[in-house]
């Protein structure tokens, strides 16, 4: 998958949401897009998945234009909120994409059940979203995005609305899923240690205009476990990513508390 040079001046006046972004992601790679609010990292996901067309530059996904990749159902999208259908049970929510993409009807039920089992929700398959906790709902949303075996998983701050414990649990679950399913993952986050913990490579972005500031390669061994978070190499990489984030003079004031850069409106 290669995303090449994307410039995006938005419709409401000449706002440069993204400028001159060059990014190449390898098959099966886990890339975190890290940056403050308004740096265009979510826009980047929408560009890759053809929900938004770039005003300049091109995007290529597995050798074809993004639009063709979307038609080929290459993308599984996970949002900050689970965005489940409230009138469908957990299992029926997972089944939704299988009803849309070409998936043999006879295999749907079994596929959904095995997916829910992977995230430990077999007991809750008949529950409606309002009967599930935030973490459970996000698990359903994640396996919904994996249901038809897309090659690329696009995740837009999927864990930022969860409490610390659930977040850590889901991060480990995601790494397990990624290890077994061999997906390419584009993971948007504003949480530095989350990016370092999960990714092979952290792409640090900066705002006004949105652009890639720096790329930090995370050469920590896998499989990664919670202990890793206390090791020196991990902390060194977190510091490096933080400095890359701070490297933007315009946002020095807001980045004095770098773990919560949400204070700035986009």
């Amino acid at each position, binding site marked *: 998958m290669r995303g090449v040079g994307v410039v995006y001046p938005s419709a409401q006046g000449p706002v440069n949401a993204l400028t001159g972004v060059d990014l190449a992601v390898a098959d099966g790679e886990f890339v975190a897009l890290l940056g403050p609010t308004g740096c265009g990292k979510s826009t980047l996901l929408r560009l890759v998945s053809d*929900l938004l067309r770039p005003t300049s530059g091109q995007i290529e996904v597995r050798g074809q234009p993004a639009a063709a990749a*979307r*038609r080929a159902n290459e993308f599984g999208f996970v949002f900050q909120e689970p*965005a489940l*259908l409230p009138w*469908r049970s957990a299992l029926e929510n997972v089944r939704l994409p299988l009803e849309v*993409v070409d998936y043999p009807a006879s295999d749907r039920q079994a596929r959904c059940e095995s997916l829910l089992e992977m995230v430990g929700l077999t007991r809750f398959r008949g529950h409606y979203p309002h009967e599930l906790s935030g973490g459970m709902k996000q698990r359903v949303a994640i396996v919904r995005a994996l249901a038809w075996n897309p090659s690329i998983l696009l995740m837009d701050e999927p864990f930022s609305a969860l409490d610390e414990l659930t977040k850590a649990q889901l991060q480990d679950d995601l790494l397990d899923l990624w290890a077994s399913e061999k997906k390419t993952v584009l993971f948007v986050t504003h949480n530095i240690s989350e990016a370092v913990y999960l990714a092979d490579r952290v792409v640090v972005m900066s705002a006004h205009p949105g652009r890639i500031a720096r790329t930090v390669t995370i050469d920590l061994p896998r499989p990664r476990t919670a202990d890793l978070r206390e090791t020196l190499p991990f902390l060194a990489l977190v510091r490096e990513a933080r400095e890359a984030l701070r490297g933007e003079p315009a946002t020095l004031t807001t980045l004095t508390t770098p773990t919560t850069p949400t204070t700035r409106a986009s």
Partner: protein
Amino acid sequence: MSTQALLVTPAAPIESMLQRFGPPIVILAVVLAVWEFLVWLFDVPPWLLPAPSQVAVRFTRTPTLWYHTGLTILEAFSGFAVSALLGVSLSALIVHSRFMERGVFPYIVVSNSIPIIAVVPLLTIWFGFGLAPKVMIASIITFFPIVTNTTRGLKAADPRILDFMHSINATRSEIFFKVQLPAALPFIFAGFKIAASLSLVGAVVGEFYGSDRGLGYLVITSATQLRTDLLFVSIIVLAALGVGLFTLFGKLERLVIRGEVDTERPT
């Protein structure tokens, strides 16, 4: 709300029914008794204010009542059905086409501001004294709440779920039937509930003008002949129909809508 529910559930069914319906029934009985007593005390003439007992007698001694009621129901229901079918379809068009939204919505708003009473004579000129003009009035009067609520509902779908559907290349009809329409159901039912009572109003108003049958006809003739007891009977039947329809749609809604919405709704 939830604590109240907890208090009610452990009680026996009959007991909880008593708790719920007991107080309003007591109040009704007191009001009727006072009414009856005052009419007797001041010897109010029946054409001015009949006693509840007189109204009850009239109710049992009006064999044609059910014929008139049935006709009004038929008109109201037909008008409602036409309106529901056209209204929901039009809403679907409005949601899918900018042109339709901009081109049609102003006229829907204008149609709502035309006083329906003023249109009745016109429809009578065109379509005579039969069922048709009444059905049309019922459908015109119910059109606005159905279209506005349905349109709002169809637009209420979670934008991220729409993004998700687009990202897996879902077709418009898949998005409509799997996401937008189910998301709109609570709104559609809200519109239907308003429309159900309005459809009765439409049918009765239609019967006021140039008609020889129906509850509206009964209201007008009993009023002009000062048969006030019959007027009361007609009004009570109409009120009962309105309540009945509202309850019916509430029940239907709970049957149709799954998941969060119906559990959130207090009973």
